[in-house]
């Protein structure tokens, strides 16, 4: 039986479409009203909120907590001060990515990790003789993401702490008399915050946020808008861009951090003082130039796209939800170049964009890649340019 999050009673009232999807065992709104696309515009131009409660959450504490995470996570947790958070990944010993998540550091010895998939037994299996305690707190907290250029103004009235929070900073605050943790994090690539709330207080806090957001035209946004937002932000999604190497059947289903575009997380990997799971394999991959793929952005030549359809007597489609399957890519000679894992029309970019894996020698910004496209029931291709990720990266995302 599918579960509902602590926000559900209010969200059910707000969801005029009654369109829901299942996410991590919970009901999650697909879109809240008939103008689903406008939820996306609401986030990019004002402020929207999203129920992120179904995320799995783990408290990790104890004298050795830092050493525990430092040896497990590929990103160096020692550089994360209390009051800061990190986007991170963890790998298997062969240097393939297991999963990703966000880790919040509350003190020298107290952390909270959020992840899209359950990880309790895995985390506990890594403890060994260290003095660490890993506790699942998934259902104890609801998570509310408040995202968009007006998010700071909307929340400042309730939690003035937001005015001081730098990108990936977090602080304790009180909203509607309830203790909450507010962090400057999110999955939209925009200015935005996430509020972690004890589940029993979730509705009181949501109501306060709704009231504070009303003058700023705050509105809920669903899964569809989030998917478009995160693709524009170049943010990979587990289950779409990659799946855990633990569940791969062959080498085509597992990827290294460098292949997934996570190389930037591995700053300081040469530092011998921090062995972590997968490190030696990743170093060997780098030394041998053994990466099979490079993750890039693709930006479709909109003129070519429009002509492709207009010349065939059709109207160019630009409003479908992101492609639910991989899109094949070819080089100039028609050889297989790789594949796009996410592919959609981007209103901010005014063309189709894709998060793609291509052969490393093709991953040069400005290179042309040909994207498979069906027109009049026949496969053809449309030209796209290799670009950097993210596609959309406003200054407000990180500025104070």
């Amino acid at each position, binding site marked *: 039986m599918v579960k509902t999050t602590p926000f559900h009673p209010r969200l059910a009232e707000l969801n005029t479409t009654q369109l829901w999807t299942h996410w991590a065992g919970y009901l999650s709104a697909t879109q809240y009203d008939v103008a689903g696309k406008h939820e996306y*515009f609401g986030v990019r*131009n004002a402020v929207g909120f999203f129920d992120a409660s179904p995320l799995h959450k783990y408290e990790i504490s104890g004298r050795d907590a830092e050493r525990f995470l430092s040896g497990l996570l590929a990103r160096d947790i020692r550089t994360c001060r209390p009051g800061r958070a990190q986007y991170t990944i963890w790998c298997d010993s062969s240097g393939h990515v297991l999963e990703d998540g966000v880790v919040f550091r509350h003190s020298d010895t107290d952390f909270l990790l959020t992840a899209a998939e359950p990880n309790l037994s895995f985390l506990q299996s890594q403890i060994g003789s260290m003095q660490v305690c890993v506790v699942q707190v998934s259902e104890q907290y609801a998570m509310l993401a408040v995202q968009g250029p007006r998010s700071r103004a909307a929340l400042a009235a309730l939690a003035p702490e937001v005015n001081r929070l730098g990108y990936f900073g977090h602080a304790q605050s009180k909203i509607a008399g309830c203790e909450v943790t507010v962090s400057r994090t999110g999955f939209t690539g925009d200015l935005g915050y996430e509020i972690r709330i004890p589940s029993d207080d979730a509705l009181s806090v949501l109501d306060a946020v709704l009231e504070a957001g009303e003058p700023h035209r705050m509105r809920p946004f669903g899964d569809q808008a989030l998917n478009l937002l995160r693709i524009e932000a170049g943010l990979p999604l587990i289950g779409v861009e990659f799946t855990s190497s633990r569940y791969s059947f062959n080498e085509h289903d597992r990827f290294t951090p460098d292949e997934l575009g996570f190389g930037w997380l591995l700053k300081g990997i040469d530092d011998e003082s921090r062995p972590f799971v997968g490190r030696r394999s990743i170093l060997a991959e780098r030394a041998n130039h053994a990466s099979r793929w490079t993750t890039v952005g693709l930006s479709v030549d909109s003129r070519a796209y429009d002509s492709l359809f207009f010349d065939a007597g059709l109207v160019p489609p630009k409003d479908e939800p992101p492609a639910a399957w991989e899109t094949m890519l070819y080089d100039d000679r028609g050889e297989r170049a790789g594949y796009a894992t996410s592919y959609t029309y981007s209103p901010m*970019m005014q063309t189709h964009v894709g998060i793609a894996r291509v052969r490393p020698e093709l991953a040069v910004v400005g290179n042309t890649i040909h994207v498979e496209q069906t027109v009049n029931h026949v496969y053809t291709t449309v030209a796209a340019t290799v670009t950097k990720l993210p596609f959309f990266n406003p200054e407000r995302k990180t500025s104070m």
Partner: protein
Amino acid sequence: MTDTNRYDAIVIGGGHNGLVNGAYLAKAGLKTLILERRHLVGGAAITEELFPGFSFTTFSYALSLIRPEVIRELELVKFGFNPIHMPTSFAPMENGDYLLLGPDRDENLREIMRHSPRDADAMDRYEHDITRVLQLMYPLFDRVPPNIFGKTPEDAEDVAWLLGHLGSAEPKVVHDAVRLITGSIADFLDDYFESEILKGYLAASSTTGTKVGPMSAGSGLVSLMMAMGEHDGHLGSWSFHKGGNGGFTQLLATAAQAFGAEIRLEAAVDHVITKDGRAIGVVLADGTEFHAGVVVSALDPRQTFTKLVDQRELPDDLVESIDRFQFNGTSAKVNFALDAAPRYPALGDRTDQYRGFISVAPSIEYLERAYDASKYGWYSERPYLDCCIQSFLDPDMAPPGKHVMSCFVQYAPYHLKGGDWDTERDNLGDTVQATLEGFFPGFGALVLHREIVTPLDIERVVGLSEGNIYAGDFLAPQMYFFRPAPGWSQYRTPIEGYYQCGSGTHPGGCVMGAPARLASQQILKDRVATS
């Protein structure tokens, strides 16, 4: 004169077409100067804080017809192009009911069925037929019109292209296009629909900016022009730019400058300097001279041919055509700062109907009666209003909880019979407010401030002759290879080096950028030919 006053190209007028043209020329490497008479660029596409905290789109108020080519070629995304989709259309009715359409086809059909079960599937047929006509028209928008009077092999090629294009379409599609271009929207809609509110809503755009009523021949053409918009693959849909249309023209200015164009504000051009039949520069009202081999007028045809140059330098037939060119401005604006969102009784406290246009046009008869007044030289007692509460789309345009509302008003003829606009301005504002009060009881009490823009104000402030928002009526004899005059539709003028790029040229008005883009192509082609 110093070297600093010498340019390759000078563009007169910093409206959206002047900026687009200047940006293209600068991008092609020409040392380009854009001269704007006012203290800000944008022409009729500006956003101003006329009441503290409230941003008004004084004149033009939405974006849709901007060609994708302009966005692409001027790399506007890089400079911050930020369109906002307008997902709904709301049409209040005199009996308190309403028509509310959104992006979901099936919900729309159910909503239409409320008014007429027969009109639901008719709507699908109508939309499909219009889309087919749009497909036929788009290629005409993105090309310089053929000179059907020309004698060169190139002219023959252009004409052959046009005939080939029309000849390759299905006969029904071409016939529908001709029915729209020459006929009335009322007749066209009668072939599909019976519901008064649906017909009123669909006919409303046919009256925009031109002195025709929905029952007049020619109203179909205006309707077709208004449907030429495209937003994210939705043909005929409208959008809004962050910060209003002023936000968009500021972005165009940024792009033009990034490509190297120089913009001078408060630089009113007195006239174009000509020598031996060619343009060599301009003189400002203060006497400053700038010289260039290319001078481009982004102003309307009347100003381009009769104010900026001495019409004695032009052929008689062109002067006559320009004299005959119709500018019957019939549109006004009333913009409101509101203390809160208006309330529509049948929808209670709902406000989601305000995320697009609010069309006060409950029937074709309502529109036609509104038009009647203008025929006899007066403004409508109950005008057609095309409103948008823009702060619902962009909350930065009004203080939290407050709203800014743009109301386009039709009909308000430039030439009043037995009155003048300086006397009637407030009365027009009252008429509009009373009309809104009739549909949204309590509206008047919400008004914190209002700005009334008559056709005379449009002419005075923006410079558009007779306040015509398209720089010349959308009438068949003033379109395509007749815009602005037979034989002069290819952006050149009889004065060598002097070009036209404003909305008075093909394809016409609205914040489209197409005239300026096509003009820049001609200018650059001519430079190659003469160098």
